């Protein structure tokens, strides 16, 4: 049978960069085709060609056997190619129905909107897809998962033949991912196909029929996703084999305790959170979304107010009221959202690295000593192997992995002993992840104490000397490295002592009547 969509010999260059060369893929009727490749491999360029934002230099596209020429987003939609972009493309102030049918509103007398018909149309579509949405709800008020559903409803409302989903699960938790996959399986059928772009290997194996790998803008191969191992896919992506069974390095139980947290609580979520961080240790924080891992970090560095609890650093109780206090005590927090909270994207690598220490280290009487800053930044670019043409390069032009390293360098210059990494490899491609792992191990080896918050279990298992498992704002267990497995972590991450008396008994907590309010709080925390 003829493929639904064929891409053949497609090339595209931008000034100075060859983004795609001789790329090909074919999407069959009724299948989910995963498209994988490292960041910058050319996936998004291919998507932009398909959606008509750019046009190809060479090559051809065929849809249902007919030559396909897309001249703009509107034409792409008309031809049956819908794209769900990685960044949400919804209007948060409009309702679900208004979002789905934007640009195609039912009208009366050409100009007047027929809001009732609009809502009815949306309700019908939502019902057909079996989505948990209210057509009249304002999109900005929905959870991320439900916003994703709106995107899908919108994409499918165009009678899409090809639906392209770019990292649709980046912000979803496991339950939501399962729901999404169930939905995809439900609507994929004859005359339709899905191209599913993702970094998460488990997911690809769960949802995709075949995997097409793109490397450095070129076609690297197509594999049957059920008959292939994750390692085979990754090695095809990076062009080399990656050790998949790496274990934490330097695990010892005789390390002195550096930071003691006791009874940390917040009004919204955290309940009696206690743990120790030892010197030179990588302490993993695992849990489902909304469990309160990021909240622990934020309360610890004073970014959020805590309601109770003590923090002891090197045996001395300390009070941390705001992030500046935390930094003074040598605690640096590396946010999961580097681009918003970690970097000055328009500023140079040098400026970013020296920023936090500008006053103490690189200034005399208020004047910046550029030479000192430059020397120090250069030093760290070398030791952390930051790939940048010059120190003056703007941070936004670096890859995700190198941006992360710049943030690390900033805190190292500041002499931080405790580094809290929140999702250190989010948005970083597989090859560069290894480098970040290596860096974390090196930092721990030098005696830095590291808290690593991660939603990826393989990452937790690969890196953590010990694992703090959280659920519903509580620490449910601290696992030693040899006790930690996917199963044991998931067990403790899914305990719900507030709803389930058995779970409460297992944890030795009195199940209080206040329990009913807590899932609400957990959800709020997960969203914020």
């Amino acid at each position: 049978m003829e493929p639904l969509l064929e891409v053949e010999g497609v090339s595209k260059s931008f000034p100075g960069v060859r983004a795609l060369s001789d790329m090909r893929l074919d999407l069959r009727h009724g299948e989910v085709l995963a498209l994988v490749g490292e960041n910058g491999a050319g996936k998004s360029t291919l998507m932009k060609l398909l959606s008509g934002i750019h046009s190809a230099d060479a090559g051809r596209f065929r849809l249902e056997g007919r030559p396909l020429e897309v001249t703009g987003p509107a034409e792409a939609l008309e031809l049956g190619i819908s794209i769900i972009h990685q960044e949400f493309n919804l209007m948060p102030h409009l309702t679900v129905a208004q979002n789905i049918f934007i640009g195609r509103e039912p009208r009366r007398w050409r100009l007047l909107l027929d809001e009732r018909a609009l809502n009815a149309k949306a309700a019908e579509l939502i019902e057909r897809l079996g989505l948990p949405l209210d057509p009249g709800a304002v999109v900005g008020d929905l959870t991320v998962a439900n916003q994703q559903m709106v995107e899908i409803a919108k994409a499918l409302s165009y009678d899409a033949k090809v639906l392209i989903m770019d990292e649709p699960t980046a912000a979803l938790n496991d339950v939501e991912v399962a729901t999404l996959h169930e939905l995809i399986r439900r609507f994929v059928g004859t005359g339709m196909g899905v191209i599913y772009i993702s970094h998460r290997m488990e997911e690809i194996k769960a949802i995709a029929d075949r995997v097409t790998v793109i490397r450095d803008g070129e076609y690297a191969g197509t594999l049957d996703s059920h008959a292939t191992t994750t390692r085979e896919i990754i090695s095809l992506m990076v062009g080399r084999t990656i050790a998949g069974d790496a274990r934490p390095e330097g695990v010892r139980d005789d390390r002195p305790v550096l930071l003691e947290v006791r009874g940390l609580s917040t009004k919204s979520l955290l309940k009696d959170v206690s743990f120790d961080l030892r010197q030179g240790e990588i302490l993993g924080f695992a849990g489902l979304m909304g469990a309160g891992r990021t909240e622990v970090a934020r309360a610890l560095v004073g970014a959020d107010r805590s309601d109770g609890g003590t923090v002891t650093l090197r045996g001395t109780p300390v009070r941390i009221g705001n992030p500046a206090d935390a930094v003074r005590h040598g605690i640096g927090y590396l946010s999961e959202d580097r681009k918003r909270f970690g970097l000055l994207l328009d500023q140079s690598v040098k400026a970013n690295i020296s920023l936090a220490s500008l006053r103490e280290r690189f200034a005399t009487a208020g004047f910046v000593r550029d030479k000192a800053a430059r020397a120090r930044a250069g030093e760290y670019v070398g030791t952390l192997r930051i790939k940048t043409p010059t120190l003056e390069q703007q941070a936004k032009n670096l890859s995700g992995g190198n941006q992360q390293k710049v943030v690390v360098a900033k805190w190292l210059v500041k002499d931080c002993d405790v580094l809290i990494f929140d999702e250190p490899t989010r948005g970083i491609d597989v090859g560069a992840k290894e480098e970040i792992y290596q860096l974390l191990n090196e930092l721990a080896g030098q005696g830095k104490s590291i808290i690593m918050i991660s939603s990826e279990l393989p990452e937790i298992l690969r890196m953590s000397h010990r694992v703090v498992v959280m659920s519903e704002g509580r620490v449910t267990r601290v696992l030693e490295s040899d006790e930690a497995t996917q199963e044991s972590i998931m067990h403790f991450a899914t305990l719900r002592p507030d709803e389930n008396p058995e779970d409460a008994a297992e944890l030795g907590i009195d199940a209080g009547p206040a329990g009913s309010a807590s899932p609400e709080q957990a959800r709020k925390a997960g969203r914020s």
Partner: protein
Amino acid sequence: MTLLEAPARESTGGGLASAARNRLQQLLAFASLIVICGFFSVASRYFFTYGNFTAILFSTVVIGTLAIGTTFVIISGGIDLSIGTGMALCAVMSGVFLVDLGLPLALGVPAAILFGGLIGLVNGINVSVFKIPPFIATLAMMLVAGGLALVLSDSAPIYFTDVEGYVELSTGSLLPGVEFPNAVLVLLGAALVAGVLLTKTVLGRYTYSMGSNEEATALSGINVRKWKIAIYAFAGLFIGLAGVMISARLGSAQPATGMGYELQAIAAVVIGGTSLSGGKGSIVGTLIGALIISVLNNGLQIMSIPQEWQNVILGCVILVAVYADMLRKKET
């Protein structure tokens, strides 16, 4: 299926909550207006009279008209600084059409209003085709329009003494038997038209949509460029209308006035709950905002508080209004 059904209730709740919140926002602005009126009624016995109320409404006309047009621009995520001097230029153009060229009223007035649309059109093209940031593009237009108003009038007022019926556009009373100035009817009519356009038409929907997420709107296949030009041009019509109304009220086109009106109009929009970052706002809110400014000016004047202090108080009101809006947002 259970997975899919579970969150349904939540999203429904979100919908109701947000609808209630939008209503609450307008209610709050309206409640502040009532409170302010109540305060002045108690503070001065001259405030709570029919005559004073029509005076307040009358004095709201120019700022209100400008603010209504600007509401579109601001909801779409833009800003228009050229409305003040643009209004002065349109007043002068009205003089040129009616006095210098001697066009009849039925031709000259629409021409002056359309001239405002032309100003908006140029703004729209600069913003959307040449990608000049709205602040800069309309700042430049503010200077251009202010200068042109002086050039075209030789820096002298143009009097409409010989144009029959012009002044009555503003001060006359069409309603039989009551003293109710036409200008207020014009404002209410303009508000009605704008309100319908904003909430019931495609133009309005895309105005919100662009302000909410411009890129997403473009990717949905909507010609953002075209619609943005349309929004600025449409808002420009209100510049023209304000130009006609202010010159009719004064009986003359004053080329040097206008500067400063844009800030008052923007203040009215903001007090009315429209977000300067776009995506949200309403005509009713803007009208209430404009009324709050008028009532404050009027009441403070009645209480013999000097003009200088009126500005100080207005500034504080803007801060309080915006801060209250932010607090409400934080709660959700």
